[in-house]
């Protein structure tokens, strides 16, 4: 959302403080894409350094293709193509704020305060931490994605955090050399979205379980 639009919403919320529905519109969900792409191919001999060396070329190719198919803009577009607010179970009217530059992966756990300078009274962060392709002789090919959501409420303290993987199988990725890769690219984006939906379902369950019953 453009800053002017956010400003307009903020002004509206300030002008009518008595309306609870508008107060909810002050909520913000900030979204960041992943900066790390991983590929782990296992053969019949298993993993380890030998396995990593054997499949290094294939994994390098896979990582390059993941970085292309799921670049920052595509990741956030994919998430925004879903009803993010409903999927995560946030208040209706929550404003989505896109951050196209990924966060540094190694700071994901160490930073415990708000990542943006927002002072919204109702503030959430959704961070995609890792995108991982795996192939094993037993389980086949899959794409796994690590997501983390943080609910800060109205301050700098984390009130609720949920970090977990979503994962689903792949049929077309990785493509063979020289073949049309459109289907494989589209599959990665689709599975990325399904991974998020799986994660979001678990997040809603976890969040509702911690709410005190009346």
């Amino acid at each position, binding site marked *: 959302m453009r800053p002017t639009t956010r400003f307009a919403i903020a002004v509206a919320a300030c002008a009518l403080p008595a309306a609870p529905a508008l107060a909810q519109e002050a909520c913000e969900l900030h979204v960041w894409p992943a900066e790390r*792409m991983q590929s782990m191919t296992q053969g019949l001999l298993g993993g380890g350094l030998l396995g990593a060396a054997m499949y*290094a070329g294939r994994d390098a190719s896979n*990582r390059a293709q993941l*970085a292309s198919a799921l670049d920052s803009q595509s990741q956030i577009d994919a998430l925004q193509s879903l009803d993010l607010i409903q999927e995560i179970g946030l208040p209706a009217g929550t404003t989505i704020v896109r951050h196209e530059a*990924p966060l540094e992966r190694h700071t994901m756990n160490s930073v415990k305060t708000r990542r943006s300078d927002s002072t919204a009274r109702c503030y959430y962060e959704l961070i995609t931490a890792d995108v991982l392709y795996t192939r094993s002789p037993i389980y086949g090919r899959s794409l796994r994605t690590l997501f983390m959501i943080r609910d800060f409420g109205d301050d700098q303290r984390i009130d609720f955090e949920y970090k977990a993987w979503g994962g689903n199988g792949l049929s077309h990725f990785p*493509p063979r050399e*020289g073949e*049309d890769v459109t289907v494989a690219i589209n599959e990665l984006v689709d599975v990325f979205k399904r991974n998020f939906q799986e994660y979001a379902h678990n997040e809603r369950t976890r969040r509702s379980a911690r709410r005190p019953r009346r």
Partner: protein
Amino acid sequence: MIRSSALLALAWASLAAARGQDAPAAAPGTTSGGCEFHAWPGEGLTSIFYGLLHGGIVNGGQQGRRGYPRVPPGAMATAIQAELLAEAQPQRAMNHPDHRLIVHPEALDSRTIRTSRGRIAESASPCYVELIVDDVVLQQDFVNGAKLRVLFRYREFGPDAQPRNSFTTWADTSLDSFPPRTEADIPEALREMRGAFRRDITEFAGSLRGPRRLGN
């Protein structure tokens, strides 16, 4: 150690001067007559590295992350790709020698590339072709070394609003000198990078002409 982008810019300038080349004559087309072959360069260079101790961060080399080999800023910038596309005359290798090549100076964003169904350029040409450089990736790993991988998208429209033929695939070329280890290595590394990009165009044209394999 490479420390400044100014050094790289100087190296590029000296290379271009030595070759007597100017920037490509790019002409975003809005013509209605004649056959047109529109080409778009990509948005700079993406790098992905995997070593024994570090790896997986996209553009870790450009950002100076610890453990990642430095990638010179501006390597394979959009303007350089446009210049190489103009120089390569890809319409000839892709069976359209009579089409007029129009190289656009700006890269398309990934959303436009992936969601556009119709013609991207505002052209009513009755025989219209698009070649899009979607991504240019420097791929490095601790076993196989470095490669320049380029994702090309080709769409042939004929007189229609929707493409009648499309093909998207990767081409890659191994690199020996890139990324450069010292400042003295920069000119050779950049020459090699440009050569790899040219070879990738040729390889893609070969895949396009050959028996077409759809995704599995």
